[in-house]
Structures are given as C-alpha cells and as structure tokens.
C-alpha cells in the first residue's frame, strides 16, 4: 500500500496480501481450489479413485490406494484433534486400535459373536467416543504438554494390555480368560457386509474406503465451517483469549477429542475387517508418527493437505519396496529438488555436470590405484539407476563402506547447510550429492523398510524448518 486510506483499517485492507498467494502452477492450483466447492472436489476424488480398479488389475496398486484412503480417514480424525483444536494427542492410535478390537470382538469366533456390520460399526463409534471422553475428561485439565505425556502413556498402555491380557482371572470363571489373543491377535474376522453383499476382494474394500473417505471429508469440512469449528480454531490460536470471549474451553476440547476418537475407531474397524485380523503390533508408534507426518506434511488443519499427505506418506514407502521404481523416483526427486532449490537454474545444471565429472575422476583414481578392490553392482532394470550403478566405483565390501559413507553423509549435509557463501555451498554440494548417490545405491535401496522411516524422520525435520505450516497449509502472518 503506497498511501494510507482514511477510514480503512490497514491491517484488514491488506489481508489478501498477507495471506500471500503463490504464483505459477501452485498459484493456479490454489486459485482453482478456492473456486470449486467442496463437493465438487469430492466427486472428482471419488470418480478418479473409482477409475483406478478399471485402469489396472494390479492388486498391489489397489491395495496401496486403499491404504491411502484408510490412513486418510484416520488422519482426518487426528486433524480435528491436533489440527483444529491444537491438542497434541499422542495416544490417538489407541482409539484406532480400540475400534479394530471392538470389530474383532463383535465379528469373530474369538467371542462367538457375529453382529451385522452396521451394528458393529455403530457400536465401534459409540465405544471409541466413550473411550475418548474417558481419557479426555481427566487429561484435558492438564496444562499444555502434560497432555502429550499422558496420552502417549495411554497409547503405550493399549499396546501392552492387548499384548499381555491373555490370562486374566475374571470373577465367576474358573480358568484364566484370554481377553485379547495376546501377540497372536484375533484372526478370521468376518468381512464387511452391506445390505447382504459381502466385501471379499481388495477392490471392494478399496471402493468402500474411498467412499467413506469422501464422506468423512465432507463431514469434517462442514464441522470446520460450523460454529464449533470456528471455536476450535480460536482455541488453537489463543486459549486464553478464547476463554475470555466466553468459549467453553473444556467442553470444546472434549468434543474435539471425542470426534477424533470416533473417526479413529471407525477407521480401525474398517482396517480390522479388511485385514481380517488384529494384532497389537498393528498399533505401534510407527503408525502414530506416520499419521502425524500425514497431517503435518499437508499442513495442520488443511483438508486437501490430508489427502496429499496421505498419498505421499503411504505411496512413497510402498514404492520404495520396488527397487527399480524407487531408484527412478529417487533420482527424479533429487533432480527436481535441485532445480527448485538452486537459483539461478543454470547453476543446477553446472552442479550435475560437476558431480558427473567428479565421479569419473574419483573412479579413475580409485580403480586405477587398486582395481581388485572394486566390483560392480547388479543392474536393477531401470535406466537411471543402472547408469549410476555402472558409474559409481563400488568397493568389494560395499555394505561396510556404505555404512561409513552414511555417517559421513550426515556430517556433510549438516556442514553444507551451515555454509553461507552460495558458491562455496555449491562446491561443497558436489561431494555431498556424490556420497548421497553412493549411499543410496549401496545401502538405502537395499533396506527399504529402514529407508522409509529415515525418510519420514528427515521429512519431518526439514518440513518443520522450511514450511512449518505444511505443503498446503495457510501461510499465516504471525502477529507479534
């Protein structure tokens, strides 16, 4: 604003500029997303999603897609608790587990009870909501971070109880009773059945999950726009101010907690039906962190963010299991990152060329000095990976060297991030990225399950530092 206007509050006037709009492709997406109503998006989502089983019969792909929808539902629930109400609930997965176990109790030979699906699902929602209230009502009185520890403890207790409640002396029974099946879980659960139709294949479950996901988004969206939703956001921004405005803080928090728990329980029930069994290990901390990563990645409180976050967090780790695909994706990712981070763009090209030359020189020197110490890696059947593999000098004890390389890589990355001069930094990136490629080919590609968790860890740190509001979060201006 060049000039002050009379009678107009500058702060209000400049609102649009402060909620800064991105330009280019990102801006286009943001603009369109504002224009299209939410049900329009949902129809797009469902139609596009429903096309997947038509397009491919690959059950692996459909399974991943189903998993995305399932995790999406779970993340929507967490989004209410952590994203809207701002409560750091680290016991959230326990509600998911409660839902799954209730489903298992009500539809298996373990208890001998076989309820119809609709009744089971209703009971699941009621029970998990009750548990949400039960945990919430005492612990929400705690101040700030104390909530995190109590809920984390609750989550751990759930896993431990389900693992260990196998020989419990109940009054009125002679023998100890097995309440949870222990680490072996409860197996052979009934499939979901709706109006007499049984869901048996992956495609059925995928479609069910997709529709439930869409409906959940719709519910949460309206919740977000409602009076309660606004109150939650006010609570998240400033608890004291919200209270001063007459908001019933405790009740609002409890509502958020219960609704989150209900969604988690429901998705847990669907999960149990889909997997056909439940085990305590399904509800461990890895899942908790994955779900947090989903909502944080997309942007706390953002609904499209949940969809995006679920796609990235579930699809990427699964893709990592497939070495050729993982390799290609990794290299594309590295190149895209380089081009988007390094400005001007030609420097990125120079960098890539420099790495290639550096690699050739290093290879010539090392292999020239001691040709017996080097070997070649088996090609994986993907163009970029195989090119890189034949270009890298691979020592005979690749695993050990790769491990040391990984340790050095961490130090190099930390050091590079500290270099202030752009040119120096560019120069330092050459050996760093070279080492990254080396470690990727020797170690990371070989250990997909560890790599995905490393990836989650790095992602959480980097994202928090560079985009604390997530990929699709509203870029807020902090008022000091």
């Amino acid at each position: 604003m060049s000039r002050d206007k009379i009678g107009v509050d500058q702060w209000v006037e400049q609102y649009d500029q402060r909620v800064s709009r991105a330009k280019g492709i990102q801006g286009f997406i943001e603009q369109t997303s504002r224009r299209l109503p939410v049900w329009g998006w949902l129809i797009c989502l469902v139609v596009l999603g429903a096309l997947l089983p038509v397009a491919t019969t690959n059950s692996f792909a459909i399974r991943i897609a189903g998993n995305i929808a399932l995790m999406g539902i779970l993340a929507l629930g967490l989004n209410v608790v952590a994203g809207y109400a701002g409560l750091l609930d680290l016991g959230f997965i326990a509600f998911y587990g409660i839902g799954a176990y209730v489903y298992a109790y009500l539809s298996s030979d373990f208890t001998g009870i076989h309820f119809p699906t609709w009744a089971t699902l209703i009971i699941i929602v009621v029970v998990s909501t009750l548990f949400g209230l039960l945990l919430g009502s005492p612990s929400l009185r705690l101040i700030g971070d104390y909530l995190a520890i109590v809920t984390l403890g609750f989550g751990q207790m759930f896993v431990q109880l389900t693992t260990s409640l196998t020989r419990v002396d109940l009054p009125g029974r002679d023998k100890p009773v097995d309440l949870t099946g222990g680490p072996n879980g409860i197996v052979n659960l009934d499939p979901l059945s709706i109006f007499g139709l049984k869901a048996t294949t992956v495609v059925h479950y995928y479609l069910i999950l997709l529709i439930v996901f869409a409906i959940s988004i719709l519910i949460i969206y309206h919740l977000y726009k409602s009076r309660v939703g606004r109150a939650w956001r006010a609570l998240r921004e400033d608890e004291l101010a919200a209270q001063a405005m007459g908001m019933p803080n405790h009740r609002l928090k409890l509502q958020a907690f219960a609704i989150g728990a209900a969604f988690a329980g429901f998705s847990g029930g669907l999960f149990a039906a889909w997997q056909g069994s439940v085990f305590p290990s399904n509800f461990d901390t890895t899942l908790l962190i994955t779900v947090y990563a989903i909502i944080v990645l997309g942007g706390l409180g953002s609904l499209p963010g949940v969809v995006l976050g679920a796609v990235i967090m579930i699809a990427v780790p699964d893709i990592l299991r497939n070495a050729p695909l993982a390799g290609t994706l990794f290299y594309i990712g590295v190149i895209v990152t380089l081009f988007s981070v390094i400005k001007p763009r030609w420097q990125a090209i120079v960098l890539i060329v420099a790495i290639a030359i550096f690699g050739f020189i290093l290879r010539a020197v090392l292999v020239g000095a001691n040709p017996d110490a080097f070997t070649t890696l088996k090609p994986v059947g993907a163009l970029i990976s195989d090119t890189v593999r034949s270009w890298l000098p691979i020592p005979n004890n690749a695993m050990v060297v790769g491990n040391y390389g990984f340790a050095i890589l961490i130090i190099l990355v930390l050091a590079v991030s500290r270099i202030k001069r752009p040119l120096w930094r560019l120069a330092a990136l050459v050996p760093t990225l070279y080492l990254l490629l080396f470690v990727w080919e020797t170690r990371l590609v070989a250990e997909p399950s560890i790599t995905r968790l490393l990836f989650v860890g790095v992602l959480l740190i980097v994202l928090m530092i560079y985009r604390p509001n997530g990929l699709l979060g509203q870029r807020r201006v902090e008022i000091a």
Partner: protein
Amino acid sequence: MDVFLQQLPQLLINGLTLGAVYALIALGYSMVYGVLQLLNFAHGDVYMIGAFIGYFVMVAFLPPDGPIIAPVLIIIFMMLLAMLGCGVLGVVIEQFAYRPLRNAPRIAPLISALGVSFFIQNAVQLTLTAKFRNYETEKLIAPGLAFDFGNARLSVTRALVIVTAIVLMIILQYLIRRTKLGKAMRAVAIDREAAAMMGVNVDQVIVFTFFIGSALAGAAGVLTGIVFTRIYHFMGFSAGLKGFTAAVLGGIGNIPGAMLGGFILGLTETFAVVFISSTYKDIVAFIVLIIVLLLRPRGLLGARIAQKV
C-alpha cells in the same frame, strides 16, 4: 508381611539402581524443558547412542583374551567418551533441528523432535543392524564382588551405578546453584527475554543446557549397559518415555524434582514387578503418573505459578 520385610532391602537396592538411570535421563528432559519449554523427544535416542558409544569403547579396549589392564580406567573412559559424544550430539540436534524453530508455533519443534528421534533410531539400525549387543561387564567387574547386608546383596556393579549417578547429580547441583553458568541457566528458565536483556547470552546457555543434559543421558546409557548389559537400537524409546514420565512426575523443569521422580519411578516399577506382575510394570508406572498429575497437575515438586499473559 515377613516375606515382604525380608525382600524389602533387596527391592530397595534394585529400585534405586533403576531409579538412578531414570533420574539421569529425566534430568536432561527437565533441563531442556526448563530453558526452552520443549519436550525433547530425541532425548531417549541420545541415551541409546551413549550406550553404543560406551559399548564400542569397551570393545576397543578389551583384549580378546588375557588379563585386563586397569578395568576402572576403561569404565571411566567409557563414561567420559559417551558423555562427550552425547553432549556434542545434543548440541548438534539443538543447532540443526530446534534452533531454526525457536519462534515457530509450539507444535513445530515437537514434530521436529519426533523426526530427529525417528532418524537417529533408523540411522543406527541401518548402520549397526537391529541385533542386540551385550556389555561384557563380567570382564570389567568380577561378578562375585558384592557387599552383603543379611537379606540383601549390593553387587559392586549396582553400587557403581548408584554412586556414579549420585556423584553426577551432586556435580550438576553445584553447577546450577553455585556457578555463573548455572545462574544464567536459572535466569533463562525463569524468563528468557528478561535474561537476555540483563546480558545473559541465551544461545550459549541453551547450548550448554543441551550439552549437559545430553551428557547425563550418555552417562545413563553407559550405566544401563553396565548393569543390565543388553543394548539395542530401540532401547531409547521406552527409556525416554520413562525418563520423561519421571521428569513429569517430579515436576518438569524442576531439577530436584527430576531426581525424585526418577527414583520414585524406579522403585514403583521394581515393586510392581514383585507384587503385581512384570508384564504390567509399565502400566503401573503410567497409572502412578496419571494419579500424580491429577492430584498435582504440575508434578510433585513443580511450582504452582500463576499463568502469565
């Protein structure tokens, strides 16, 4: 009742050993929380790294066979290197993962801390694999060595753990109560901005806090290795949770509270194992925590301060 009285001294010894380890971990949590109001979820993993540093130092110094020269020196060396290594690690974590987020919304450093924790665990699993490793304590300290008190036996290993932990706590108390740095730390904990205005170098204080807290975690890691022998990449998670619980129990941000909380938790768990069942010891610990928090929302020794706006 007689059985109970006979068991009591031994249980106290075992509980104190466990409690000493918990207390050392809790101190790091509490100190960091005191100056930054940050729950450092990566603290448990720093402790795990400490156990591994101690292990590798021990492997490097233990001859494969033959007599061991100066086992005491080896133990001291293990402790010192683990404390130094963990201290540096803590400072690095602070520099790279928490410092850029100092003015971010409160949830951001928490998530970042979860990320650090995940990263460290999996980096260790990648490079050192997931297998268990065992401290060869019996080579350093003869297993038979013990003090007998009628019903109870205090092995030298356990005595070492308890004494070391208490010595470290006394040093820490001296550092915080008597030195200039400690004064600065307390000032930052009370009001960071005011301390900065009075000429306290806040960044430096935070770095020192992380260094000391992480070094204590490293010491706890080595002590765990010495007394319970088995170490692995995931040990930091449950130990971190316990340390955290202990810190909260005593009143987070409160140094004597963390020690008290650690010992109470250690004793509770030991008694729970004997009188209830070993499978429920963690659950008992959490139930105790929840009860304490409901009765005293700021922990046992936590100050009851009015919230400022």
